[in-house]
């Protein structure tokens, strides 16, 4: 067993039950997070990337169920099977925030508007450090805020979320997430709502956290540019499946799944000017209640064969960590 692995998700499936229908939100998803490394989960909207993150913290909505699979957390002496933990129990409350922290996409809805920012950060500190005093917690909150680059943190700490700008709110969220030195940081599209210059600031912060605290970062995004700049490992998701997984070099340089390849060909790249050719992916993502019977990408895929119409391919390892769910990956690799 690799010592660096802190979280291992194996064959995880989650379904939502609504309107007498079942939505297979994620199916047999596997990935690992390592200490001091960033794992990026990429995919389009509705592919199940946020569901995977919520499942790790057991924050799934009521009408959903973990059908099978394991979420193993190696942060303590004994590994913990998170999928078996009571979602309202004491153990998960210790882990949430204390050991695995999460940053949400929209900082305005994630912060409580009727409490000051300082109160919300120290609440987290007091919850996870039983012998900490209130004024100590407040002092720590100020330190955290100024470490995140918020000017006049000693005054700002007593302000409410609406007095903060978007970038500052997200920084307050990160301060809160980092307050207990978590071993894993789950970031669900942390910068999608922010401008690029502010996004650059947030990424710089996250990079420092990785280096200084040896935290594992799981970053959920739809932006291939972000993946290229921040990721050590990448998992590409499509319609609830991880279709390709590997190090950033393997996946971006030698994409083995037709979807990854098509996705990379469909985005304009800065600095290549007007003469670059971008190839759209034909069709659109299928309705989750009316899925293709076989490989989920088959209707849009250029490599599709008869076999692809029958069943979703199993994971196949190409080399080391690089694995793919595709019958035709050898042809895809040959076309590079």
């Amino acid at each position, binding site marked *: 067993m690799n010592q660096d692995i802190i979280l291992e998700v194996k064959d995880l499936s989650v379904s939502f039950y609504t309107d007498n229908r079942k939505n297979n939100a994620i199916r047999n998803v596997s990935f690992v997070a390592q200490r001091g490394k960033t794992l990026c989960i990429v995919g*389009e*909207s509705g592919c199940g990337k946020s569901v995977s993150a919520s499942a790790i913290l057991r924050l799934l909505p009521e009408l959903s169920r973990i059908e099978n699979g394991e979420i193993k957390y190696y942060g303590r002496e004994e590994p913990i099977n998170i999928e078996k933990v009571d979602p309202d129990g004491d153990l998960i409350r210790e882990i949430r925030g204390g050991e695995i922290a999460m940053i949400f996409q929209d900082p305005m809805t994630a912060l409580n508007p009727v409490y000051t920012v300082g109160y919300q950060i120290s609440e987290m500190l007091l919850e996870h450090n039983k012998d900490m005093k209130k004024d100590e917690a407040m002092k720590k909150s100020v330190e955290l805020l100024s470490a995140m680059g918020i*000017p006049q943190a000693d005054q700002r700490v007593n302000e409410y979320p609406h007095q903060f*700008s*978007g*970038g*500052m709110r997200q920084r307050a969220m990160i301060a809160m997430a980092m307050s207990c030195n978590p071993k894993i940081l789950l970031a669900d599209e942390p910068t999608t709502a922010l*401008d*690029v*210059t*502010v*996004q*650059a*600031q947030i*990424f*710089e912060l996250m990079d420092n956290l990785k280096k200084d605290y040896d935290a594992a970062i799981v970053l959920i995004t*739809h*932006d*291939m*540019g*972000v*993946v*290229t*700049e*921040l990721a050590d490992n990448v998992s590409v998701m499509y319609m609830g499946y991880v279709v390709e997984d590997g190090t*950033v*070099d393997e996946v*971006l*340089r030698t994409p083995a799944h037709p979807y990854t390849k*098509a*996705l*990379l060909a*469909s*985005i*304009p*790249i*800065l*600095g*290549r*000017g*007007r003469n*670059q050719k*971008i*190839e*759209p*992916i034909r069709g*659109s*993502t299928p309705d989750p209640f009316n899925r293709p019977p076989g490989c989920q990408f088959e209707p849009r895929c250029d490599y599709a064969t008869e076999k692809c119409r029958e069943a979703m391919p199993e994971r196949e390892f190409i080399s080391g960590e690089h694995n793919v769910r595709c019958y035709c990956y050898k042809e895809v690799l040959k076309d590079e």
Partner: protein
Amino acid sequence: MSETKTKLVEIKGAKTYFPIKKGVFRKTVGYVKAVDDITLDIYKGETLGLVGESGCGKTTLGKSILQLIRATDGVFNYNFDGEVKDLRELSRTELDEARQRIQIVFQDPHSSLNPSFTIFGSLEDPLKKFGVKTRAERREIIGNLLESVNMPKHYMDRYPHEFSGGQRQRIGIARALSVNPELIICDEPVSALDVSIQAQVLNLMMDLQKERGLTYVFITHDLSVVEYISDRIAVMYLGRIVELTDTEELFKNTLHPYTQALLSAIPVADLDHKKERIVLEGDVPSPVFPPPGCTFHPRCIHATEKCKTDAPKLINCGSDGMDHFVACHMVEEKFK
């Protein structure tokens, strides 16, 4: 772009201020200076990219051209086949006629189509208004329009909820095309779409431009998209244009410190792309109280005393006959 450039729109000293009203008597206590003294020409057949971060006034400028928002001050000259008229001084009926020439595609395809109308119902209104009398004729025209945006004719009897985001955006484009406009203002037309769908819409827009000789004003915050589609780019910051030049020139020879920082902040989906990231301090200031002098000086690494008091003018600093407008004291001095 053709060699003999004809000006389609000439904007001189445009200002759009929104009053802030307070108290019982709704007294005006200040102004949000969304667009502050912008001078800009739009040439026939070109795509002008308008980029900037949120709140920089790019959408307001777009809507001011169409007179959807009435500008506070300035001249918006429009070339009606040789006859130049100021859009701000047109009567209602004249403005209706002008709007046959200028159309807009909105950002959010979910809210820009009426959910209780079929696509035919939504698209027939502009045709009715501009003189297509019989229903059969309108159906014919709309059928052809849908085909020109790569959709089957019979989709016109469906409702917006039956379509995906990308399809709805294409319907939005079809609606803008229905009156055969010359100029289309595209307000973040691909920002709400998934990456694999963005390429479809972008390529469609470029094909339509070639076929119909359209002029686009393309408003976006995504520089990789704007680089792909634009002939010229105007970079805006706090209601002003800070840099305006040809796309290639802007990326090869970036002069304004803000544009430099903006370009360096964008994550690029290319593993071989190495660069220095310039991380800007702080946030965009409020447009109610813009900083005196150059509005960018509080975040600029090159700021001098002069920048704090004197607002720089947009000056042509291009070499070899190339137009390259920059508003920066530092660049201006170097150029001299």
